[in-house]
């Protein structure tokens, strides 16, 4: 097969390319240049392009750099900034995977004559009954099925995830065996366009005016200080909120940029059993799930799995009811739906509706 491997410069995609070469495929590596601004972390910096190119050279495969900086700005960075300005918390990595890697790159791969695209994500594609299903990676701690939640059959049919069956330690051992220089490179953790040394606030401040806000207990009206940046307060978070006079922790219940007000409450006051979904964003991997379907949900990249039921009013409204009340999920975040049976198959994903 002619396989295009998306090489980020990290150990996972390096091993992905190496294994496919060993399997006898005609492999070409491509690194996406996504961000032209300052960066010291993430997955696609200049140093990472260099690493990916060197790995490709060592594997004896061609390597290309595809420039998607304009599209990345338009489809990932701008919505990220606009979302925060409205008090929402979009996940840029999920948007990048969805719009850049698995939309633009897949289309490009097809145009350029590739049979398949491979990435170094920790997840698996299961072929069954002529269809292709996304399944969690073998390494629970590293599973990345969440960020691939929006993939559909046409993409899954063309996707190879060779390291999804491996533990991270096995990936590193394979990298060492293949002599790849990225074998001990640390995992990327951060958003690639935000400098870890400066943080989210400095990035947002360079783009928009940030809003200071009062922090107030929603029930008692007690003032719990203030924040310089309401845009960075996320519903459900505890960090940045001082304990109340009663000594108990408080959690963010509601953020209003316009009112310059962050309302907080006790955990038992803020938990919710319902998540409203943006019907327009809802994407099913295959056939749509019907009303009252039992699912498992995950609301962040390494978040806990929760049991829930998907509901549909038959028109535009979709929502989830949780088996156990949980901290609310911020508007703009994505929820990935998994089928309850084994193996854990991704059924779809949607963005949490904002108020």
């Amino acid at each position, binding site marked *: 097969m002619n396989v295009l491997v998306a090489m980020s410069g990290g150990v996972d995609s390096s091993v992905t390319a190496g294994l496919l070469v060993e399997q006898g495929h005609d492999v070409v590596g491509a690194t996406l*240049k996504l961000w*032209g601004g300052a960066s010291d972390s993430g997955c696609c910096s*200049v140093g990472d*392009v260099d690493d990916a*190119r060197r790995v490709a050279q060592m594997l004896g495969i*061609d390597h*290309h*750099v*595809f*420039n998607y*900086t*304009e599209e990345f700005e338009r489809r990932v960075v701008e919505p990220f900034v606009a979302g925060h300005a409205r008090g929402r918390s979009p996940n840029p990595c999920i948007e990048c995977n969805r719009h850049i890697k698995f939309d*633009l790159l897949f*289309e*490009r791969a*097809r*145009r*350029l004559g590739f049979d398949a695209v491979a990435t170094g994500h920790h997840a698996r594609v299961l072929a069954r009954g002529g269809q292709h299903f996304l399944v969690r990676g073998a390494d629970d701690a590293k599973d990345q099925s969440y960020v691939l939640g929006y993939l559909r059959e046409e993409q899954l049919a063309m996707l190879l995830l060779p390291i999804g069956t491996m533990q991270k330690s096995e990936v590193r051992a394979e990298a060492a065996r293949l002599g790849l220089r990225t074998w001990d490179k640390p995992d990327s953790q951060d958003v690639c366009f935000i400098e870890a040394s400066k943080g989210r606030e400095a990035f947002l401040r360079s783009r928009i005016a940030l809003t200071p806000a009062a922090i107030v207990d929603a029930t008692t009206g007690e003032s719990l200080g203030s924040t310089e940046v309401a845009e960075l307060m996320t519903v459900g978070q505890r960090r940045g909120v001082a304990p109340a006079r009663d000594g108990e922790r408080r959690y963010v219940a509601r953020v209003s940029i316009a009112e310059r007000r962050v309302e907080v409450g006790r955990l038992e006051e803020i938990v919710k059993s319902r998540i409203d979904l943006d019907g327009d964003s809802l994407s099913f991997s295959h056939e749509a799930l019907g009303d009252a379907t039992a699912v498992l949900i995950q609301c962040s990249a390494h978040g806990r799995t929760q049991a829930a039921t998907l509901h549909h009013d038959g028109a535009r409204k979709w929502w989830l009811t949780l088996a156990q009340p949980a901290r609310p999920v911020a508007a703009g975040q994505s929820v990935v739906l998994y089928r309850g049976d084994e193996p854990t198959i991704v059924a779809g994903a949607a963005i949490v509706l904002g108020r």
Partner: protein
Amino acid sequence: MTQYYFDHAASAPRRDEVADAMAPFQHGVVGNPSGTHRAARDARRALEEARDEVASFVGAKPAGVIFTAGGTESCHLAVTGVASHHRRTHATTTVVLSKVEHHAVLDAVGLLGRDHADVAARYVDVDAEGVLDLDSLRDALGADTALVSVMTANNETGVVQPLDGVASLVAELSPGAVTHTDAVAAAPWLDLRDVTAPIDMVSICAHKIGGPVNSGALILRRDVALEAVVPGGGQERGRRGGTVDVAAAVGLACAVRLTAKERDEVNERVARYQRQLCDGLATIDGCSLTAPGARRLAGTVHVTFEGLASDELLFLLDQGGVCAAAASSCSSGAGVASHVLDAMGVAPSRARGALRLSMGAETSQDDVDALLVILTSVVSRLRAEGAAR
């Protein structure tokens, strides 16, 4: 697979004659040309012979030749050297440059402006054909202008700039200013003795004309006051410290000698290929020639394809054995939006599908024929697969 090389503007094939000329200075004892003994004298002789040849290539005196490690350093020395000297005796220093300069010049000016509040840059517009707008230059020039830098021909589009007009305006409005031209892209094609005659400083580099990389020169036509960027042992008359690389200088000299000798024949032949390419490309769907009305170097054909992505064109051309480029080469290997096309007002939807085909002395009719066949099929394949978004 047969390789069809259309990226001479990025780097031209090394000439065998150049390698032969350099060989004696790459083995065994090569004296430091600043020394006093026999080996040093031998090296010094080779260096000064090289200096003579480089000087005559641009029609300057040998004493005006400063050997550098390539074109970027040459441009940097011209800009930074003159501006630094000017700052010592003036309250404000203004550098005037075109918007389509190579980053060697743009970034040198950018650094000065960033680090020194008394240094200002004025950027001169080009017209839709990429030709310097002399009215815009007139507006930019003033009494405080220290340096005016306008390239001889553009490295992306091949558009030749009106250096005579630049020199006249500078003489009229900023008589104290020093003029500089980046002639790196023009050197294979134009007789620099004529076209850069009214300009004070000329930058050239070896690897665009069949010589080694990391070899170039800044040539001063008159005694320009210039501060060394890298001081040190006082080499190159105190204008560029560090032991001079004799092999690199000899390689540059050999390359300029061959270029000057073959220039007329190569120009005539490659101009014919250029016409064939322009005619052939005109028949391809959605292809337009950049700067069709401007005077262009014979070796460059720059086109844009509406609705196509350069990355995809280059990928499939590469698979067909064609080496080409989107804009100028850059370190990451990714095509970046061209500041040159932007300055010309080319729509982004076209600029995203830019392709630069650049030829040289060894380009053959077979190369041109093959390129047209491959490019036509690549474009029709991409069109059939649906245009990139």
